[in-house]
């Protein structure tokens, strides 16, 4: 709406607002303006147009809105508006550090050697408490293991199958199509085994937490002694990245906890990085396809956009290049 107003309308508006006091003053000022509008000096005219132009109004508005938005983004609250919080910032958990994951870029896939190591960490460490419901043994084939390796891993686990022709369930070694075995039979058993806290299923945990991979990595490596004044109940640990600070999971990753088959030193952060890469793959198995599709879409749509611009210019050349002449009518002597 603002853009439709002519600049002169704003100018007269400001004059009106300034001289509301008396009608006579308004009249004299209005007439003086009209009288001297064309003959006033050039410098005051530029200053006046600078102060009253639409462009400066818009840019000042944008500048103020931008400053407020920037402040809010930086400090989390509006400027000059006081806020009172009953909870401390520690209750929201420390923000995780941003890490340069190998799969972070627009064109980057996972580091698959890391996925393989991460699966080893999951199997030897995390799987004691956490399930991974959505991943079957067959999903590992062609990602981190050969078919034979995955088959061998599956056969180490006994699955209940059935019923057979006598109507009874029976145990059989796992197949590629079986899903990874959960550590507990059900949620209640999991809670009972962990002091009332349910170890979450890890299939989608990277997607399910704010901060994603960065958060899980920070959490796994962020265990520390509670700072002075912070009381942590027995059986709980202090972790500044966990909202509230008190987490039921104790620190599990210690240096040289597992022995990697490819000889990578198993430091705490190395294991954390590998398990997070593995879990990120588990949460997004479609990751590579998604990024490839994105590349294709961007290429195709930008080509189509360029073509459409070209076609528009082509179609409009006639209109853009025409010249309109005014031929005054001949004097018809009517």
């Amino acid at each position, binding site marked *: 709406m603002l853009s439709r107003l002519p600049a002169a309308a704003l100018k007269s508006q400001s004059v009106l607002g300034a001289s509301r006091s008396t009608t006579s003053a308004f009249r004299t000022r209005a007439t003086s303006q009209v009288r001297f509008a064309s003959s006033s000096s050039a410098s005051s005219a530029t200053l006046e147009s600078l102060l009253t132009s639409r462009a400066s109004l818009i840019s000042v508005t944008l500048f103020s809105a931008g400053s407020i938005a920037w402040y809010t983004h930086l400090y989390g609250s509006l400027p000059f508006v006081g806020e009172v919080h009953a909870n401390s910032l520690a209750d929201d958990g420390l923000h995780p550090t941003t890490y340069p994951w*190998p799969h972070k870029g627009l*064109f*980057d*896939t*996972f*580091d*698959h*050697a890391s996925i*393989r190591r991460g699966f080893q960490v999951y199997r030897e460490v995390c799987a004691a408490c956490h399930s991974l419901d959505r991943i079957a043994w067959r999903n590992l*084939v*062609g*990602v*981190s*293991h*050969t*078919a*034979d*390796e995955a088959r061998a891993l599956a056969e180490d686990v006994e699955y209940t199958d059935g019923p057979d022709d006598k109507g009874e369930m029976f145990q059989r070694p796992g197949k590629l199509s079986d899903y990874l075995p959960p550590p507990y039979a059900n949620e209640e058993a999991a809670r009972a085994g962990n002091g009332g806290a349910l170890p979450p299923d890890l299939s989608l945990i990277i997607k399910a937490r704010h901060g994603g991979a960065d958060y899980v990595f920070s959490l796994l490596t962020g265990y520390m002694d509670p700072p002075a004044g912070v009381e942590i109940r027995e059986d709980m640990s202090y972790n500044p990245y966990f909202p509230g600070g008190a987490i039921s999971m104790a620190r599990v990753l210690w240096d040289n906890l597992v022995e990697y088959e*490819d000889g990578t030193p198993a430091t705490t952060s190395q294991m954390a990085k590998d398990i997070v890469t593995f879990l990120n793959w588990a949460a997004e198995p479609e990751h*590579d396809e998604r*990024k*490839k599709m994105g*590349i*294709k879409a961007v*290429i195709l749509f930008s080509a189509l956009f360029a073509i459409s611009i070209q076609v528009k210019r082509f179609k409009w050349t006639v209109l853009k290049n025409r010249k309109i002449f005014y031929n005054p009518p001949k004097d018809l002597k009517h």
Partner: protein
Amino acid sequence: MALANAFYNTFVKRNSVFVTSIFAGAFAFSVGFDVAVNNFWDRWNQGKQWKDIRAKYIQEDADS
């Protein structure tokens, strides 16, 4: 102009040829485009993908 005439006479004159060439062209383009993007992807991610590290874990006469 000669090129345009040749193009017209080869592809556009008969509708059967026109439609067929559009379908064949779409097929060829999609295959070629996929191959190009996949080649770029493999070059960009050299050493990170399963096919790059698979040789370390494969045994003789194993599948996949």
